[in-house]
């Protein structure tokens, strides 16, 4: 759970921007990145996000962990496109009797998709790093995401921490008694671990419901109301989106 960053709690320049603004701007920029043909705009977005991430002092370790997987996937996409699609052959080799051909146009396509991945992921990561969970939730409800979904998100968020601690302890207890000493053993131990979590989840949900009912729960969670948006916030974000739009159009 260490990658589950606690960064949003820190006070920084983006923490004062309303979550609704951050979410809407992120979605707009994401749409631009996805619909762009070429490398320039996604890479530009990546740079801006990286600078902002540094600006809000994200710890480098957390940062790299967050990007390790998308980078790997971007790489795989390049390889698939390079080796499997395209007409314009660059080279061809014959190791172990297979013919492997690299394509120039495939490579270009692959690079474009990867730049999209990195640009989009950087926007998403910045949003995650700069916005506390609860604010994000009320921003989602402002976007008309149904209440039921948001309530489930809130329950899930809190219990991820409780249950992952339990999971770790069970895992260690099993390891302690050689539960992972062979693949077969490991598999059955893992099933037991997951099953125990499900049992715990069920029992705690009953207790939690009781605790909530006695504090007046009648089937829906009350959400804190949001403050009105500040004009400056809105104007600045509009300005930012317009600038990005112009760059997108270039």
């Amino acid at each position: 759970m260490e990658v589950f960053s606690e960064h949003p709690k820190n006070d920084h320049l983006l923490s004062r921007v309303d979550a609704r603004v951050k979410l809407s701007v992120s979605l707009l920029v994401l749409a631009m990145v996805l619909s762009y043909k070429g490398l320039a705009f996604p890479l530009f977005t990546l740079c801006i996000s990286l600078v902002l991430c540094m600006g809000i002092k994200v710890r480098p370790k957390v940062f790299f962990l967050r990007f390790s997987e998308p980078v790997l996937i971007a790489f795989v996409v390049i390889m698939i496109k390079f080796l499997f699609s395209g007409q314009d052959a660059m080279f061809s080799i014959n190791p172990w009797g297979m013919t492997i051909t690299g394509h120039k146009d495939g490579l270009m396509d692959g690079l474009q998709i990867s730049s999209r991945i990195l640009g989009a992921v950087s926007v998403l990561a910045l949003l995650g790093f700069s916005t506390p969970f609860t604010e994000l939730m009320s921003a989602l409800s402002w976007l008309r995401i149904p209440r039921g979904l948001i309530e489930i998100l809130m329950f899930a968020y809190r219990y991820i921490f409780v249950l992952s601690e339990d999971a770790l302890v069970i895992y260690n207890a099993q390891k302690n008694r050689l539960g992972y000493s062979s693949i077969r053993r490991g598999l059955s131990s893992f099933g037991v671990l997951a099953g125990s979590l499900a049992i715990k989840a069920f029992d705690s949900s009953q207790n939690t419901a009781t605790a909530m009912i006695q504090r007046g729960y009648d089937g829906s969670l009350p959400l804190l109301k949001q403050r009105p948006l500040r004009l400056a916030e809105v104007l600045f974000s509009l300005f930012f989106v317009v600038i990005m739009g112009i760059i997108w159009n270039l």
Partner: protein
Amino acid sequence: MESVTRLSVRIDSFTYPDGTMAMSGVDFSVKKGEFAGLLGSNGSGKTTLLRLMDGLLKDFRGSILLDGSDIRKLSSREIYRKVGLVFQNPDDQLFAPTVFEDVAFGPLNMGFAEKDVRELVLPALRDVDMEGSANKAIHNLSFGQKKRICIAGLLAMGHEILLLDEPTAGLDPMGEYKMMDLLTKLNRDKGVTIVMATHSVDLVPLFLDRLYILSKGSIVRGGVPEEVFTAPLEMAQVKLRLPHIAEMIYRLKHEDKVSFKKVPLTIGEARREILRVLGENNA
């Protein structure tokens, strides 16, 4: 005024769906402003009794009256405006992401406006010494801190009666005393009526007004702490013991025939009693 009965409990029997008879022969009442304790070994029925008193388990033989009306006939809203229960495990009770939101949950459900909610939450946090942590995430708190937030969550609702299930279990010695101090303050200063379940024999006599001993689902003894803690053997029968201080003085009195007049339960009393005996001997 002080002797108004808030809760009057008479349970002839209660059986869990799987057939475990968890309660049999319980009869006591809780007066306004009282600080009462339920003492008993593991499995003696403390948690079950508190749940019954909170109206969570309804399928019992007998009657539980809250301010004179049958708790089974009251709506849950009516019960929970007056009575709050704090669970043994804080993780079952805390569900919101941050401290503030969790404590605000009750007042929001009671229909208070945003602004008034703040004015209920902050004093409650102050009462449990956690005002600095309003915006902390719950999962970053220590065990003892979580227990405090549970209590704050009920305080903010202004309950007149609090039922607490082992509020001191799992806390270190200093945490135990602080928790009991907090409860005593609530009881003395705010007039909150408190019933707590515990098996912490040494702590109880320092703080509680009344004590009931549960064993195998029935109350075998009740009264002020001095009446309840008398003989080690009787306590051993219900898998409990005297407080260590009382145990020592008891042995000195009964086995070594030292002329103690009574068996004190607290360090302060014991000290006075020993000094008295020493003085007598000197004279």
